[in-house]
């Protein structure tokens, strides 16, 4: 099942900024909330005009099968992406549950 995430990004500069969200980009939630982190199921490209804020939605799959589905929970982008050109829920669960040793 896909999980929606709303994001707001502010451009405070006097120049237009292009923003790319690679496929698999990961958003985390506070671990104490025990809710699923997500990996974006597609890549996104936005252009944010000078001195403006972009408000948009992206879509992802869950990374942690054992945790509950988030609902209007505050999240944070991480510097990581799930490394695959196509994001398949079962494959993601299997990989995260069985890390390479």
């Amino acid at each position, binding site marked *: 099942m896909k999980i929606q995430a709303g994001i*707001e990004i502010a451009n*405070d500069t006097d120049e237009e900024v292009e923003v790319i969200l690679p496929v698999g980009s990961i958003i985390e939630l506070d671990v104490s909330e025990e809710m699923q982190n997500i990996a974006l199921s597609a890549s996104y490209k936005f252009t944010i005009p000078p001195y403006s804020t972009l408000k948009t939605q992206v879509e992802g799959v869950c990374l942690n099968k*054992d945790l509950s589905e988030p609902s209007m929970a505050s*999240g944070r982008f991480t510097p*990581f992406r799930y490394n695959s050109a196509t994001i398949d829920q079962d494959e993601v669960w299997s990989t995260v*549950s069985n*890390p*390479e*040793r």
Partner: protein
Amino acid sequence: MKSKIKDCAKVILYWHQNIGIEIATENYFKQDIYYKYRELINDLHEAFLCNEIKPEKIARIQLNDLLNRFSHEKIPKGMIKEFRLETIFKNKEIIRLEDLAKYILEYETEYDQTESVFDFPQGWIDEPSELKPKSVTIQTSGNSNFDPVYHAYYKIFKGIKQYNLGGLDLMVAAHNTAKIYQNEPVQHSDEPSCNENTNVEESTTINNPANFNFQFATGTNTLITNVLKGKIRITRVVVGTCRDWALKDKTE
């Protein structure tokens, strides 16, 4: 071990700065190679001082690149003594630059295994290099709450928190998920330890992001790189929204 490896790298650089430059001046003065050599030595020295280059890289450059022509050169005994390296080359009468480089490479793997923190590779913001899978086993001294161990290992993420970016909670959740599916004990910080004997040594395996198939999402024009370079700010992220959240929120 860690300090000896670092000292070997120091001696390599020290040798080039003092003796190598003299040899180069004598043999290659005003040739292209002379200027390239000087520049390389200065760059390596500066990077080493700023902790931007690891001993392993210096060893590889010594054995493979421009510096390799000096690899058979002997290191004066005084230099070896000064850096107290005689104990690691006990049976060698003559110690050459290549011996130091090979020693670094031989033990660097072991040194890596005992490193107790995750670090971002150099240049990760602009040109993300591929993260390699790596696991580290850390003793937890009878405490089955692993959270502080994860926090210490992934302390690098504290530095990017000011940009509203995370990573630590992701890694902790991934470890907990893996433990559940591999039937290993998972204990959270608010639960008391079941282990009555607090002196029992326990350990936990910490996996690097690549073990979970995570790689950097950085590079030209990416969200993370733009944020870290101060071009944009992430002001809000809400997970588990309804489909028309952005639209609804605008009209509110």
